[in-house]
């Protein structure tokens, strides 16, 4: 979240409410509703870390502050922009559950796979419904299409696990 704020402040100074509005414009209903508290807590942390500076608006009795990037903030933003995002890669809750629950006998592996397959297929259906409703704009469409591709890969992976499991059972 902090990098998003730095990026929004890179072009021009802004106060908290303007940042909130910009995020809403960029991401629309993709993002959970942001409250003022989250915005101001994040800005306070950024200021504490020397990444932004807030200045009181002269003559504003409500104590409104306008924020701008510091050199350190600009450097951190540049680094964030230059660094590719790491893949979701090996983080997978299902896999850990699968290994532990199977080895400890808490659940049959086939049952876990079956439940997980239903969840992935159902999520595919849910996401396709989002695309059909088509009210969230091109950014949302890309995000959902990406999630659909991931889910298809997850389903193929379940097939693979199931096949390996069958092979293991056939082995003497």
């Amino acid at each position, binding site marked *: *979240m*902090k990098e*998003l704020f730095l990026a929004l402040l890179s072009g021009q100074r802004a106060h908290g409410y303007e940042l909130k509005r910009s995020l809403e414009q960029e*991401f629309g*209903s*993709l*993002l*959970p*509703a*942001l409250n003022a508290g*989250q915005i101001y807590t*994040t800005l306070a942390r950024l200021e504490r870390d020397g990444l932004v500076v807030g200045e009181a608006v002269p003559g504003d009795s409500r104590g409104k502050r306008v924020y701008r990037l510091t050199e350190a903030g600009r450097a951190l933003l540049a680094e964030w922009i230059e660094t590719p995002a790491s893949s979701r890669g090996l983080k997978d809750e299902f896999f850990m559950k699968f290994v532990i629950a199977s080895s400890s006998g808490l659940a049959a592996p086939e049952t876990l796979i*079956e439940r997980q*397959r*239903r969840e*992935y*297929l*159902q999520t*595919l*259906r*849910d*996401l*396709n*419904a*989002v*695309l*059909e409703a088509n009210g969230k704009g091109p950014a*949302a469409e890309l*995000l*959902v*299409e990406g*999630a*659909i591709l991931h*889910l*298809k890969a997850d*389903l193929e992976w379940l*097939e693979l696990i*199931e*096949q390996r499991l069958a092979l293991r059972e056939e082995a003497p």
Partner: protein
Amino acid sequence: MTAVLEARNLAKTYETGGAKVLALRGVDLSIKRGEFVAIMGPSGCGKSTLLNLLAGFDRPTAGEVWLGGERIDELSETELARLRRRKIGFVFQFFNLLPTLTAVENVELPLLLVGQRRRKARTSANALLSDLGIPDKHAVAPAELSGGQQQRVALARALANTPEIVLADEPTGNLDSAAARDVLGLLRQARDLGQTLLLVTHDASVASAADRVITLRDGLVANETALVAARQVTPLLELEGAQ
């Protein structure tokens, strides 16, 4: 509920160059009236073979196929052709519309083949096309329509005779993602109106449009999953550090 289409221990073996290929190794399948079922699996899993057997395009090595309470795998070619015209609607990946006929002529053809009067057939065909989102262009050749529109026409043709079941073989395989969504939406719309549907696809995302997804692997049913209506998904993104 009664089964509209049933496969009982269905097996199919091909011989190619002296080698036996077990395409299907005993598939049981039962599709109830009004159900929308998807058969999913990678190429070579047996799904095309299964579809061909269910439609009577090919004969099983063992097992039975029942359609609307009638055993069909032992019917003669003539009987099968007649049965398909009346009881099965087909939607194919490449639309398979007759290129020399107009859109509406393609849709009314199955009606004329079962002896309906020309004027009545034309009225039904026009109404079906409009229901499926082709309000005009009824008199144009398929080649002048987009892929998505051609598939709508093909779906109208498949539904024309109110068949026992519509068999859709990779119906979105040749469409862009927006047109594919439209066609899947229309299949579900047909289901909502009581039409029984069997969709065959390699694509899990397409299969998830159905209410029941059956996965084939190596000529056998590997698993089966029932789905519910789409759940609400919001919000989509999470902000790290915002709580």
